[in-house]
């Protein structure tokens, strides 16, 4: 076996490896997560059984608070260590790769829901309507059911009440009052504004960074506001709810999880906004900002897919 010392001496890197120190955050975050889901499980079961939910809701909130607090201190530690210059170039590359593959896993999470939507639209609804290879299912079970998309007349309206209307594209005449179109415009603009902020950061123009980043966060918040508006319209006027069959199920889960991700992205960007105000980030070292902006572009792309496949087609 070769001599280790000579091997190490001939190593191509000048810098010795850097390994982050011990940390209490992972175990604290695990405890928080466990408390959160365990209490949330009880909360959901209590609601379903029609029992009191006092303790379970308090504990759920406590679990969430533990996770949030831990993550706050975890990230502050990372930022402080970065300001001290501890992580070398190699560890920073690891952060970049970590974010990259995390976004990839998020893509696959949405793929599951898009896959469900496509499967239902391509096959299930047709079969239930008595058409195609397995049309016998529909003929036997729900002879009255007509295959259309969006499904506004459910196979069994007693279990899943029909919505009065869907969120489908109203045609070009009604497009100006169609909220999803405005939301598309908002989100696509916000991808440009965050890019302008990023360029400003790379050019060392802090005032421009703060302005355009602030504008991005604002666009995100307006988007969320419009989505709440859309949801309350659906619930109160269209009778379109989670309970109104497969159209409501796919609509609310796809747009809802997207909205949740927009919330997360807007939160990350606003953290970056306050960090920018505090004078964080250098033109050549600002991965926190970059990661948040990648995430923002990702939720934007998901929205474009949603707009096409959930709203228009």
């Amino acid at each position, binding site marked *: 076996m070769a001599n*280790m010392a000579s*091997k*190490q001496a*001939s*190593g*191509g890197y000048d810098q*010795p*490896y*850097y*390994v*982050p*120190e*011990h940390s*209490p*955050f*992972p*175990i604290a975050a695990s405890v928080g*997560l*466990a408390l959160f*889901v*365990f209490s*949330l*499980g009880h909360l*959901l079961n209590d609601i*379903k059984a029609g029992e009191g939910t006092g303790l379970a809701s308090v504990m759920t909130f406590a679990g969430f608070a533990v996770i949030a607090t831990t993550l706050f201190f*975890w990230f502050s*530690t990372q930022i402080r260590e970065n300001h001290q210059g*501890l992580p070398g170039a190699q560890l920073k590359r*690891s952060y970049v*790769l*970590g974010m990259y*593959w995390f976004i990839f*896993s*998020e893509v*696959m*999470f949405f*793929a*599951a829901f898009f896959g*469900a939507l496509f*499967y*239902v639209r391509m*096959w*299930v609804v047709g079969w239930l309507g008595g058409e195609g*290879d*397995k049309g016998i*299912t529909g003929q036997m*079970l*729900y002879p009255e059911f007509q295959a259309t998309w969006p499904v506004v007349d459910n*196979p069994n309206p007693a*279990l*899943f009440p029909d919505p009065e209307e869907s969120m489908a594209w109203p045609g070009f005449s009604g497009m100006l009052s169609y909220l999803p179109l405005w939301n598309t415009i908002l989100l696509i603009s916000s991808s440009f504004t965050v890019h302008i902020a990023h360029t400003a950061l790379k050019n060392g123009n802090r005032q421009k960074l703060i302005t355009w980043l602030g504008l991005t966060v604002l666009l995100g918040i307006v988007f969320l506001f419009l989505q709440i508006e859309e949801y309350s319209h659906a619930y109160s006027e269209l009778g379109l709810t*989670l*309970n109104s*069959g*497969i159209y*409501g*199920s*796919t609509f*609310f*889960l796809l747009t809802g999880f997207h909205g949740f991700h927009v919330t997360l992205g807007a939160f990350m960007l606003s953290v970056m906004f306050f960090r920018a105000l505090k004078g964080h980030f250098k033109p050549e070292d600002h991965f926190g900002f970059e990661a948040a902006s990648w995430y923002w572009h990702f939720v934007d792309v998901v929205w474009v897919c949603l707009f096409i496949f959930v709203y228009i087609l």
Partner: protein
Amino acid sequence: MASGHDDHHHGPAKGIKRWLFATNHKDIGTMYLVFSLAMFLLGGTFALVIRAELFQPGLQFVQPDFFNQMTTMHGLVMVFGAVMPAFVGLANWMVPLMIGAPDMALPRMNNWSFWILPFAFTMLASTLLTDAGAPNFGWTFYAPLSTTYATSSVTFFIFAVHMMGISSIMGAINIIATIQNLRAPGMTYMKMPLFVWTWLITAYLLLLVMPVLAGVVTMMLFDVHFGTSFFSAAGGGDPVLFQHVFWFFGHPEVYIMILPAFGVVSEIIATFSRKKLFGYDSMVYATSSIAFLSLIVWVHHMFVTGMPLAGELFFMYATMLIAVPTGVKVFNWVTTMFKGSISFETPMLFAIAFVVLFTCGGFTGLMLAIAPADFQYHDTYFVVAHFHYVLVPGAVFSLMAAAYYWLPKWTGNMYDENLGRVHFWLSFIGINILFFPQHFLGLAGMPRRIPDYALQFTDFNMMSTVGAFLFGFSQLIFVWVVIKCVKGGKKATAEVWDGSHGLEWTLPSPPPYHSFTTPPAIK
């Protein structure tokens, strides 16, 4: 905060903090391995309850509902608690050593991935003690059994799966970042040890399918608690949709449990044959092809649900295609041994048994892939025999082989070779008595997941149960060997084995707390 450079000269932290606050890949690897061994024994206990009940026809020990809870928990604990974390533990220990890295790429996240697991499994196992009982719908948790007809424990089951998913995704991200970013200079992709290669591909599979598993349990959660109708035809959904999304995860999942095993066995067979692995490049390509094919064959689990003929044919042929790259692998292992100076230490015994018995499992897999034949085999004990042959003498034997192979490196002490061999032979004999008769039971028509059966199945079931107890109790020998080896024994050299090859054997046994402080050069 102490400076990073000083940190290299520190040993481990004192007491419990070393484990709770760990960032060291070896400590975290050890925790993963110990946890998975505990889960292996827990899942094994559930299995023995099942086998005890099936020793005779009629109901002896447990009620049908509890029997169903046992089959469900056995599957979940073994898949998500024993096999997957064990391989992640091996990756934690070995990948940095094999590629000349100081540690895993993201050490703190690494510790988070681990610590989520004990909580997830405590929550899942605690449902056994509730009035409603544990989940009873099988580890595949098909809707509507797991939605419309589920007990309240399903909520905790769903969240436990979410936690396992978070853990696996973070683990996979960490492994990919480590392999992409921390290889020592000169360690090109095609110079990486095969174990590292198979884990890289496995990590990609995890990233592709674990989020989909999270998606499907999320749909369940909404169907159960928020009135959606993904899996209910009454609202325009479809229970078969559940099966599609589940098996899109579930089929690659079986490769997630076997690809790292291929890596382990490739390392071991080369070492004990004292030869270079035959066909390294083709091993890499075969592993990649298997991973790709695993993503487009999931419907072979659903041949009898009813689907258009074109679907049956596509998935049948795609499945059979997997036999080609798998055949390449088996050929390479056999050819590596051919004309080698083979010695039969315990790791090699397990590795050879792996090659033979995994191939048997592969052949029954081919039988099941034939759609018209599958109409007969589906949901019988033939399926149980098939996947246990690939999982137990497959994945589990490779884990045993890995443990014996690397224990001297980990602990600095040689394990007790005689006890190791006793463990091997009892396991080998036990496993075949346990699962081989189940092929015949299945072909004769005994359905799986039943607590009682028709009289003509009695003989083979009795044999199977005897084998199960032999195999199960033999594992206590393994526990004893590990404890003994940790406590002491003949000192191991750096190389440990005659024919060992690769960076991990250039470090002393046990390796220093921080493996490589500067990158080693690779020729």
